[in-house]
């Protein structure tokens, strides 16, 4: 079985020393969205309550402050107090969202970045349950899709493997915490091990992908050797390289 360890151009030029590696990272952040500008006792009581209910979910969680509802909450000092109170509770605020110009400036004084991309997902009660269960080592959840995944669609398996039975179009996106299996042509993007699992793999019965990534290490169609095109393949990480191999 041919093992493919093609080197990318950059690595070849740098021969054996490589000063750094760039990796794409996906991660989930919690966003905290104050709905009143009054940051008084009751606000922090309610927050503590929430933290008590779902401690694992929030422990050291990267946190974004969503300021959409509180345009009046500005000034470096006010924001500093907020950030400090959150840090005392083991939360890790790193950015602001939906901030006004003034809020962005105050935030950057405190070393918070302004985030303008990303999507919100509601924190449902059952989701909180799952987050706790995951810590108790319940088997990861597999998501199975039996319809074609079309251009413009994103399918995310947040906790486990993703199985698609049908074609995945160019311009479609598959993201999984675990492995990705496609029974059909894979023409879009597939990102396995999205939370950093380097043992995750991508399998497909026909490789025409625009991009393959595992734990953030990726290759685009340009660097996916054409000899693997149209074949039954798997992709995996070996020695920090994304390798592609035909399956017998």
């Amino acid at each position, binding site marked *: 079985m041919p093992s493919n360890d093609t080197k990318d151009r950059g690595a070849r030029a740098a021969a054996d020393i490589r000063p750094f590696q760039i990796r794409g990272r996906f991660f989930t952040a919690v966003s905290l969205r104050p709905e009143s500008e009054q940051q008084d006792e009751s606000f922090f009581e309610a927050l503590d309550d929430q933290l008590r209910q779902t401690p694992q979910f929030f422990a050291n969680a990267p946190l974004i402050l969503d300021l959409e509802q509180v345009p009046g909450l500005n000034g470096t000092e006010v924001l500093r107090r907020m950030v400090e109170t959150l840090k005392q509770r083991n939360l890790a605020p790193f950015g602001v969202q939906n901030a006004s110009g003034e809020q962005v400036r105050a935030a950057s004084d405190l070393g918070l970045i302004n985030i303008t991309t990303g999507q919100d997902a509601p924190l449902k009660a059952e989701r909180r349950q799952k987050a706790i269960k995951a810590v108790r080592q319940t088997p990861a959840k597999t998501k199975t899709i039996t319809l074609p*995944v*079309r*251009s*413009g669609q994103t399918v995310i398996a947040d906790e486990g493997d993703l199985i698609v039975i*049908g074609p995945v*179009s*160019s311009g*479609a996106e598959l993201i999984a915490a675990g492995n990705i299996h496609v029974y059909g042509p894979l023409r879009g993007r597939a990102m396995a091990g999205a939370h950093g699992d380097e043992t995750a793999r991508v399998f497909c019965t026909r490789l025409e992908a625009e991009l393959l990534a595992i734990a953030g290490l990726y290759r685009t169609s340009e660097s996916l050797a054409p000899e693997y095109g149209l074949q039954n393949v798997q992709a995996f990480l070996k020695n920090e390289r994304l390798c592609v191999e035909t399956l017998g």
Partner: protein
Amino acid sequence: MSKIIVVTSGKGGVGKTTTSAAISAGLAKRGHKTVVIDFDVGLRNLDMIMGCERRVVFDFINVIQGDAKLKQALIRDKRLDNLAVLPTSQTRDKDALTQEGVEAVLNELKEEFDYIICDSPAGIERGALMAMYYADEAIVVTNPEVSSVRDSDRVLGLLQSKTHRAEEEGAEPIKAQVLITRHDQARIDKGEMMTVEDVLEILAVPLLGIIPESPAVLRASNMGVPVVLDDPSAAASAYEDAVARLVGEQVEMKIGGERRPGLISRLFGRTA
């Protein structure tokens, strides 16, 4: 039971309005009571291709907003008793389309018509979403070239997720079929356009028909005649065949007016 069929594509200028006119005239010719609605608010086009632009008084938006009765806005075709056109407004924009308004008009049309054909605007914004929302079936119009196919694929995804049938628990999904228009065998042979097989391979839905590139289409629309009501042409008979398939008949697939048995058996193998 009446059927709502959306004619949609994503990409602009691929032949949606031409198709809406031809399919609705073809259905009416076969005796089905048919109405065709223009959802392209602000870019009134359908009434011109149907040859009734000088008879427009009230429009779809007037009806939605309660300024006119449906009966006042419907234009009865002079050539076919069974055919009516609901034109759109040239002055309003797509925000005038409300989901409740569209639903109410469609429900009223269902009382009289067997087929309700919705001519969608290009794009994937509000107008296109409104045109597809209540559909039972979809005709996805595609030209055999990469960007058109890719947009059609995107639209197929929306049909499968952003429509009433998609949102309703337990409802059958929208039945979507692809209609390849402006098919030009000479350009395909030169490698300038995609083959029918390549298009179907990507879209993975049944094929409703293949309409050849034909000067008859432009001539008919300049005269305000749906191509199936004009003099016989390869495009007209391809549309007639598509209409026959739409109502459930088995008609052999032809390309550019010629039979291609090899291809046909393969296509049916794939789409049956």
